[in-house]
């Protein structure tokens, strides 16, 4: 299922999940996202300034879930700005480059930044080792990353945005886990409408055409 060209009003989804992509600069976050949302890969895509955004709809358990994914700039300088986007996120992927140890080591920093900037600890986090196609340059052993993921209760996948390996799997796994968790837990902030106003009450909140119609009154005017 693809939602490219999804530029007009559409309410044909049951759930809306906000996800964020974080990690060091140059590990391939933007390409993971464009591969996932658009099946597109550019060997030299421009660096992300601030944040960029894409969506994708997937079907889980007969429900259509729309993932609203925020791709953030990796440079340390932008952390102050990008962390504002973590608000309301129900899932996050921390990405590193398997050929660059430093980007892997920084994952624990990213994990800290994420947890200190979220009011809600029920966020589902996945660890992604990207650039799997560059096996000959690997410097992060898969076992070590697996161990790190296990100790921190993170999902873990190695991906290649270039060869399109495991990309879909990584995102789907994240979304499915969020969905499963939300079914079994109460009080979890599973669904957000758009980016900012989050709906925290109850389990899963269904956004169908009818009940979504106008939730819009919230922040019309200010100052």
């Amino acid at each position: 299922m693809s939602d490219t060209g999804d530029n007009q009003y559409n309410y044909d989804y049951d759930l809306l999940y906000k996800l964020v992509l974080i990690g060091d600069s140059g590990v391939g976050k933007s390409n993971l996202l464009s591969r996932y949302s658009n099946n597109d890969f550019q060997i030299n895509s421009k660096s992300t300034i601030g944040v960029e955004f894409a969506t994708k709809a997937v079907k889980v358990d007969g429900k259509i879930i729309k993932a609203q994914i925020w791709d953030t700039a990796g440079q340390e300088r932008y952390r102050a700005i990008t962390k504002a986007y973590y608000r309301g996120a129900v899932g996050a992927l921390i990405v590193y480059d398997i050929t660059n140890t430093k980007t892997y080591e920084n994952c624990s920093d990213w994990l800290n930044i994420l947890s200190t900037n979220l009011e809600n600890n029920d966020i589902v986090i996945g660890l992604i080792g990207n650039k799997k196609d560059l096996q000959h340059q690997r410097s992060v052993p898969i076992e070590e990353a697996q161990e790190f993921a296990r100790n921190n209760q993170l999902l873990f996948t190695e991906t290649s945005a270039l060869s399109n390996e495991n990309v879909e799997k990584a995102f789907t796994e994240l979304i499915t886990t969020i969905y499963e968790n939300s079914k079994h837990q109460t009080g979890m902030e599973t669904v957000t409408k758009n980016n900012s106003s989050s709906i925290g009450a109850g389990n899963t909140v269904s956004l169908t055409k009818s009940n979504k119609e106008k939730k819009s009154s919230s922040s019309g005017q200010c100052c």
Partner: protein
Amino acid sequence: MEYPRTKLNRSISSSSNTSSINLKSHHNISQQQPNRTFSLMTINHTEKSSNADGNTKIYKKKLTKTFSNDDDDWSANVGKYTIENEDKFIYTPIEEKPNLEEIDNIEDKYQKLLEKFNYILNTNKIIKIEELRDLSWHGTPLPYKSITWKLLLGYLPSNTKRHEQILKQKRKTYKNTISQQIKKNEIIQNTENNKQTWHQIKIDIKRTHPDIKLYQYQSVKESLQRVLYAWSIRHSSTGYVQGINDICTTFYQVFLLDYYLKKDDKKDLNSWDGVENTDPVEYMSEDDFVNLEADTFWCFDRFLESIMDNYVHGQPGILKQVKKLEDTCKRVDPELYQHLKRENVEFFQFAFRWMNCLLMREFPMRVVLRMFDTYIAESSSLLNTQTELDDDTKKKKNSLVMMDSTNDDLSEDFSSLTTSQSTTAQKLNDFHVYVCYAFLEKWATTLQSMDFTGIIMFLQSCPTTSWDERDIEMLLSEAYLWQSLCQYS
């Protein structure tokens, strides 16, 4: 000062012989090489031709030796010098002075524009920066872009006699810095911080203008990497910020054009095609690269200095501009504003990049290069006030610019300049907000039929790939109107 007069006369005349191609082109726009900047490179030219012509070398040596203590850099000037009375030398350009009335009668618009620039840049020894600024706001023809930008940014002083001397100094300073910092495309001072900066710049250079061939050449990548690294070292408190690499390329490409055009007279003066598709190694020496980098470095530095608030920690300049964009929209187009609010769109979500990269990510490069004519004109008001002063005061005031120009230490802080520039900073950032507003307003109807996802997706890749100079000129005019309306209402 004691000058051996007779020798001088002979030297000068031999000067105009050896560099005749440059000299003509300097003053005659209809020649194939109308670029004023070429004459600034007279020294390079003479040095190069010295292989074929032994006399040139002798002449140059003499000249340097004889006038090493002179304030005026003779070799920088082209044209005839005659000795009048005592110590006074009168400078007259070789070609006839352009006549204003004649220029007005030229029918071809582009020709007319070229003549106007020619008139401002080549008629007087002291260039009237104010006039240049007004003219270039509306677009600078390619052959004059480089010199105009350098003048408006105050890299070159309005006194043309000092150009060569200042270029020499600045280029030397840059060269020294680079030789202390970088060797064989690796950094010398391997601190953790430096390594990180170098790495960040390197990975960003790889993905700078991926759509333009020029930026894929190894020569250009390494060259830009040096410029950005030197800048980051100089501004260690700010450091390298993603996005300034884009801004740096505007200066690089415009100054590169000079070298490209110099190489072959028959090249099309109105097109970027050649520059964007040729490896500069084919037409540039190692020294040329250093000089190009130095000019880029200094102009980029001066330009950024005026918008530094955008890049210091926390980026307050950007936050302020985004807020102002939002306020403007709320006031001028409440309907659009309400719609964005209803859809929970935050201005920050789409406008951060607009501010951080001065809209460079939203337009094709050629459109950006036109836009920068106006932006540089907007950022140059410090110099304007100087030109309005009478000659004597101007000399003193110019020392402000000179001080910078003679400063040989890259790491030195231009505190006095910075304070004067804070007003210009606001000026450019202020105007930029209105350009962003005009840009947003272009899509108002479309945006109002979209939901959150649609709006954000649309605004992060606006349909501007087919934009040309006319589109950006229209946008700039609209921005100017909005600015006037909002400021005086």
